[in-house]
């Protein structure tokens, strides 16, 4: 039996703090909270039609993480893969934690931004467990 993996697709978020928070959260999930249960995939590879990546996403649970209302990740994955199992917007985490207004720096991320990343990562981790449970129960 192949091991079930949930794939995370954060937006590029380059140069923008909320996108960077989403990406940092993905790193925390993959390398720490859900090590072995989750992995990342790269958006440009998908939009450039890399078949093996798209096939992998089609047969596994997929979570998209966006940093702004343009929702690049959501839109690109919807188009290329045709399904999304869960979506997160990093600004939603800020709304729930208004005291953690992120610093402007994206490189390195500031302290509040790091805290927001972890909070987002925890939510994503919770969702991963739910999705894997669903998958085990045959959806």
């Amino acid at each position, binding site marked *: 039996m192949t091991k079930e993996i949930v794939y995370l697709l*954060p*937006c*590029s*978020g*380059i*140069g*923008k703090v909320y*996108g960077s928070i989403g*990406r940092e959260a993905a*790193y925390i999930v*993959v*390398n720490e909270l859900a090590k072995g249960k989750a992995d*990342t*995939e*790269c*958006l*440009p*590879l998908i*939009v*450039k039609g*890399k078949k093996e990546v798209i096939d992998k996403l089609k047969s596994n649970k997929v979570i998209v993480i966006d940093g702004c209302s*343009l929702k*690049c*990740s959501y*839109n*690109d994955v919807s188009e290329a893969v045709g399904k999304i199992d869960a979506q997160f917007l990093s600004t939603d985490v800020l709304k729930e934690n208004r005291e953690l207004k992120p610093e402007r720096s*994206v*490189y390195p991320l500031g302290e509040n931004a790091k805290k927001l990343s972890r909070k987002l990562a925890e939510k994503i981790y919770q969702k991963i467990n739910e999705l894997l449970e669903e998958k085990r129960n045959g959806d």
Partner: protein
Amino acid sequence: MGKKVCVLPCNGLDKSLGVVARNVALKLIEKNPDIELICPVLLNTGDEKYEELLKESDIIVIDGCMTRCATKLLDERSLRPGKKIFTPDMVKKYKLNPGKSLILDEEGQKLAEFIASEILESLKESEGEVAEIRELEEIEYFETTVDKFRFRVPKSGYYFNENDCWVKPMGKKALMGISDFLQNMASDIIFVEFPEIGLEFEQFDDIGSFESIKIVLQLITPASGKVVAVNKELEKSPELLNQDPYGKGWFVEVELKNFEEDKELLMDGPAYFEYMKKKIEEERKHRAQNIGD
């Protein structure tokens, strides 16, 4: 003063050398805020905000693997990079080999630092050539001739207000000057009065003047900002305003304050060309009427 530079890196979520590419881009904008960053994912969505920027800039492309997504994104737009970096080549050059993790180890961090420094050095070297390049830069014009007068408007890269003054944005800085129409109306310019360096101004402020044998006219700023330089050449040779109003006859160099918003109230080359032709026609009618009276 020089051509804009922007950097388009790999998204960096597949391989560690992609992460290096991305980190190089972040280091570049951290060390030189004049460099503009292009998000590969947003660019792929066809976001229009990058269109002008890409056309007006020297583009540094940084790829992290053989898929070369960043290069492909440019190819699709028939654009050529001014500089191409392929991080696997840099592994050999600097003998630093990051591990496989997408969280960069020490070697990966060092590699990104070295590549960023190399790029910044090469930009510094070319900086001295920038002014010269600007002067030699070919401008493509729309052109119309009325009687013995020729009126030109650059096809792209310049934005105009209704006061016939232009702004040519170059990253966070810009040049400002007067249009060919205005210099033609003014006739031979003999004297210029510059603003103080450091003067902060809003869009449509009057920040300087030039006097011709017929009239005194003002430079009405097409955009808000701060004066960082004035064209001292005009003190010796004010005729440059007549001879080359979009090139050597630039008036001031400024740091832009809010150009994206200011731009909404400006005309691009094609729009201004149409506007200018109507103005020329009105001017002709007005003169004919005055002669008739």
